[in-house]
């Protein structure tokens, strides 16, 4: 026992962090679902969940309870063991990818020197869960969904990889922490240096997540529910958990590599130091709103819940305000504020995922594959070459970096435009002879 404690001692903080992640993640995923429903309602000119708790704040908890207690059905012809284990794979892979994610300079379970590679590798294991789940169900819809999912994820993996390489060229390291530090040193987020790479990452990332407009594996209007057709109750919820965790992972990678991770906007400009107080002010405003709305709730319980939520926000505001007053070198300051900024940027990603989902129709499968193989992969290849050339011009020929990058970007965009023109051949219907009355 003693040796075990001794062995674990250096890892105590990461372990604590791990426990927190595992415990909190389902809750977070639940609230992301609530957020999504609220965003959807806002876009669609309605209110969204309003019944369970004030403004639907308790909806995720009610949903979770319902899903946990629902009847658990395993189809008779299903491959029981695989059916049992497949959603677990999905969830575990997605969660594992969080282990190397730097939520802040101190909140990281392990800073691997191959961090990014590890995350990409682990998160792509999630597809096993989907394929196995779809296959073991022994249902046509599920199998079609699973195969679509496999082909789709596999195709966009390449584009994601290439887009990441364009960021890596600028960072020169695979360690997630050092990638952020590189952006701090250079004083600029990589999204401004490799915009095309960021864009490709965003699109391909959505495709990897199987989210609209690339949500073909579960396209409800075609395949009913795709690979999840036969799943119900808690197993289904696990797939959902996996999906929303994967959203966090994709957002996290994008934030770290392109949006400066835990850095606040303009990290090196002293004139923007007041931004450090922004988190506290934001939560203070939220607190104010909650307290303002509390007396207007119809039911005492709703009043209590909203009041408690307001108190929660207030405590967040207090912690963040306290952190902002600490001296700049203090670890706690960087950690707490960093976590805020990191999560805020991840939320930005999540919001864009939702925004796309409620705005765009769904691609068809062949169009999806064509977009991936005919457009994103060649463009990202050229983009990597462009960024590489710009860096060489900068380092060896002494060009200003921005000149080279602008050149590279323009070249990439030119190739992209050419590809769009080339592939704009559409199946054209033979115009039927018009008839008049």
């Amino acid at each position, binding site marked *: 026992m003693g040796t075990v404690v001794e062995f674990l001692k*250096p*890892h105590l903080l*990461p*372990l604590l962090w*791990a426990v927190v992640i*595992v*415990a909190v993640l389902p809750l977070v995923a639940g609230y992301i679902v609530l957020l999504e429903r609220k965003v959807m309602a806002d876009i669609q000119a309605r209110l969204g969940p309003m019944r369970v708790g004030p403004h639907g704040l308790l909806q995720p908890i009610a949903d979770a309870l319902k899903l*946990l*207690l*629902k*009847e*658990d*059905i*395993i*189809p008779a012809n*299903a491959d029981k063991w695989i059916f049992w284990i497949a959603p*677990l794979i999905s*969830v*575990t892979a997605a*969660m*594992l990818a969080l*282990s*190397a994610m730097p939520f802040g300079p101190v909140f990281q*379970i*392990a*800073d*691997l020197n191959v961090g990014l590679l590890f995350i990409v590798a682990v998160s792509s294991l999630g597809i096993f869960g989907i394929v196995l789940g779809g296959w073991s169900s*022994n*249902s*046509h*819809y599920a*199998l079609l969904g699973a*195969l679509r999912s*496999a*082909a789709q994820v*596999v*195709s966009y993996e*390449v584009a994601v*990889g290439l887009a990441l*390489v364009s960021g890596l*060229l600028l960072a*020169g*390291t695979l360690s997630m922490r050092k990638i952020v530090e590189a952006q701090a040193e250079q004083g600029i987020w990589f999204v401004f240096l490799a915009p095309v790479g960021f864009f490709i990452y965003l699109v391909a990332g959505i495709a990897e997540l199987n989210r609209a407009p690339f949500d073909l594996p579960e396209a409800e209007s075609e395949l*009913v529910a795709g690979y999840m*057709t*036969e799943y119900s109750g808690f*197993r289904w919820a696990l797939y959902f958990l996996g999906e929303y965790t994967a959203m966090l992972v994709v957002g996290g990678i994008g934030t770290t590599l392109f949006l400066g991770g835990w850095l606040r906007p303009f990290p090196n400009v002293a004139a923007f130091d007041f931004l450090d107080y922004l988190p506290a002010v934001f939560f203070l405003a939220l607190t104010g709103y909650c307290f303002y709305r509390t007396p207007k709730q119809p039911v005492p319980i709703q009043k209590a819940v909203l009041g408690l939520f307001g108190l929660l926000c207030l405590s967040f505001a207090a912690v963040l305000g306290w952190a902002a007053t600490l001296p700049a070198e203090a670890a706690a300051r960087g950690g707490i504020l960093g976590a805020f900024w990191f999560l805020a940027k991840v939320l930005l990603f999540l919001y864009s995922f939702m925004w796309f989902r409620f705005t765009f129709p769904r691609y068809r499968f*062949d169009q999806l*594959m*064509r977009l991936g*193989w*005919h457009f994103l*992969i060649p463009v990202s*290849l050229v983009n*990597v*070459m462009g960024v590489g050339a710009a*860096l*060489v011009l900068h*380092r*060896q020929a002494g060009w200003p970096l921005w000149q080279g990058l602008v050149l590279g970007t323009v070249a990439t965009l030119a190739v992209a435009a050419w590809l769009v023109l080339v592939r704009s051949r559409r199946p054209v219907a033979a115009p039927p002879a018009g008839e008049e009355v």
Partner: protein
Amino acid sequence: MPEHYIPIFIFAVLAAAFPAITLIIFQYIRPAMRAVGAKLEPYECGIPPEGDARGRYSVRFYIVAILFVIFDVEVIFLFPWAVQYGVLGLYGLVTMFVFLGILLIGYVWLYRSGALEWIYE
């Protein structure tokens, strides 16, 4: 640095155990499965499904799989190159241009042969 992986290993165990344990615990709490008959059949819009779902599937999926292997390995090769790019400099650029050039030729061949088309006429 294998000791870096210890927390990750523990985390992996946690991450796998948490859903599994929840699943098992709630198996005893929630009502037992009483599904019979059609409820246990795969869903096919209310009609008994025809044939087994696990038939031979379209060859195109295998082509995509093969292409993925090829291209993803290339991407993996690019990762260490990107990390060491500051050291390699112009030499790195030229070698990678050659490498990517070969890849592009292969890509163009694939493109023209129609292997990247999902629907073949």
